[in-house]
């Protein structure tokens, strides 16, 4: 009898040890997901209590929602969102540009964003151009059910000729004025990056040591995932899988522009949302461009903005486009699925794709 009770005791002790071991395996990792900016926002916070992490994540999501309401460039036709979305500050500015030709009073936040976006646009020699909203609408990308059934070549030509450029805008005394009535601002390629920087600023001020924030594919890292760096996968442009992975260290950001994110097919051809402002047509020579941004004050914005000029330029000029914005780590996947990658970017990534692992179809360049 004594033997049996001891045996029971041993088994119970064992179960307790197993339970502790399994519990120790559960990490202090909080994960939240939500839909803002018309895309998926994903926040991971490591090393905080679930309650604290959840409060922080909710605050960030609320701030993002606020930013979205101020900056979105078109009306969302979902019934329950119409009320808040009906007139953002940006839509008011765009309406004023095309109708009144008078300076418009804007908030300090929008003044700052527009002056930053203007500086980046000028630095990129106009390849990053948030003033081509009319072209983007013509191609049907400023709506949820995007795409067109017929290409309006005449209108596209007229819009290219009107040459809307960020340098047509002047910002003075809290007012914005455009000398070109064809300007329609769309901060779709900037706002998510700005939001990343905002979230990092907030989390660092709250003494958070470890977090990873992903807004629609653009990611920025704070600290690391426990004892290991945060690890991110890079989406394969044609398969539902990652093509490579890399460690994203504290303060680094990564962004990709791809022809697979928003596109439509017409007569067997792919038309993506990234439009060359010089031709007015969607870019068709590139599948994806990924940029990796070292720690700096606006790493998030750069991760969002910098992939676009490199995407738009033809292969021989891609390195020039990268240089204009000071980008040294980048990777291009062209229309034939060949890879062009800077040597220092190649050192950072680990291919998952067998073909690229053997460096087949990979061309290395010195930034």
């Amino acid at each position, binding site marked *: 009898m004594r033997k049996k009770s001891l045996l029971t005791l041993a088994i119970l002790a*064992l179960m307790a040890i197993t339970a502790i071991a399994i519990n120790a395996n559960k990490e202090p990792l909080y994960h939240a997901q939500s839909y803002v900016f018309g895309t998926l926002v994903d926040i991971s916070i490591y090393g905080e209590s679930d309650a604290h992490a959840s409060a922080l994540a909710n605050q960030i*999501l609320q701030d993002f929602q606020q930013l979205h309401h101020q900056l979105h460039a078109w009306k969302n036709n979902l019934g329950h969102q119409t009320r808040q979305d009906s007139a953002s500050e940006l839509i008011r500015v765009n309406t004023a540009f095309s109708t009144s030709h008078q300076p418009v009073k804007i908030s300090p936040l929008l003044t700052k964003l527009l002056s930053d976006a203007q500086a980046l646009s000028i630095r990129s020699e106009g390849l990053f151009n948030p003033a081509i909203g009319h072209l983007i609408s013509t191609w049907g990308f400023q709506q949820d059910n995007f795409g067109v059934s017929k290409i309006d070549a005449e209108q596209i030509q007229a819009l290219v000729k009107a040459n809307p450029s960020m340098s047509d805008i002047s910002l003075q005394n809290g007012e914005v004025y455009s000398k070109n009535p064809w300007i329609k601002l769309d901060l779709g390629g900037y706002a998510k990056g700005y939001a990343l920087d905002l979230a990092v600023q907030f989390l660092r001020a709250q003494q958070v040591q470890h977090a990873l924030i992903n807004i629609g594919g653009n990611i920025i890292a704070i600290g690391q995932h426990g004892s290991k760096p945060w690890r991110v996968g890079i989406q394969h442009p044609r398969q539902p899988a990652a093509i490579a992975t890399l460690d994203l260290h504290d303060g680094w950001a990564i962004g990709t522009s791809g022809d697979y994110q928003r596109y439509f097919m017409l007569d067997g051809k792919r038309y993506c949302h990234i439009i060359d402002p010089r031709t007015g047509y969607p870019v068709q020579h590139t599948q994806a461009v990924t940029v990796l941004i070292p720690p700096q004050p606006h790493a998030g914005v750069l991760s969002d903005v910098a992939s676009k000029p490199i995407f738009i330029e033809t292969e021989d000029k891609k390195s020039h486009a990268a240089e204009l914005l000071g980008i040294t780590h980048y990777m291009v996947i062209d229309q034939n699925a060949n890879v062009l990658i800077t040597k220092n970017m190649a050192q950072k990534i680990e291919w998952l794709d067998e073909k690229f692992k053997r460096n087949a179809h990979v061309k290395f360049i010195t930034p």
Partner: protein
Amino acid sequence: MSNLLHRSKAIYQQLRIGDWLIITFSLAIIFLLFQTLWTTERATKVQVRLSDKIYGTYSLNQNRDISIQGVIGTSVISIAQGKVRFSKSPCHNQYCVHQGWLVRAGQAAICLPNQVSLELIGENKPYDSLNY
């Protein structure tokens, strides 16, 4: 047969506390090692999210369809022998359906208009977040 039973019963009775401890601890160590070392790339579960909530986590070891009422309509997710996909969606572009079958841990498919997402979960997550 009864002889065999009788003999094993005899062995059982001869075992002492120490023997039992060794047996149970060995079993425990095997169990723990199995848990930590036995990893496969293939996913075992799928986590389905609707908006900002986890809708459910399902084993991939079954055949079933799951209908989810999303923001704009009903998405249908099919699970079949270790794979999962969006099989029907109310969205305009049908990107989620075109993603096809997902099998490996870490793979994900998202329907932005309907705010439904799938993520495959395995023993080892190959990355924390996906850049796209």
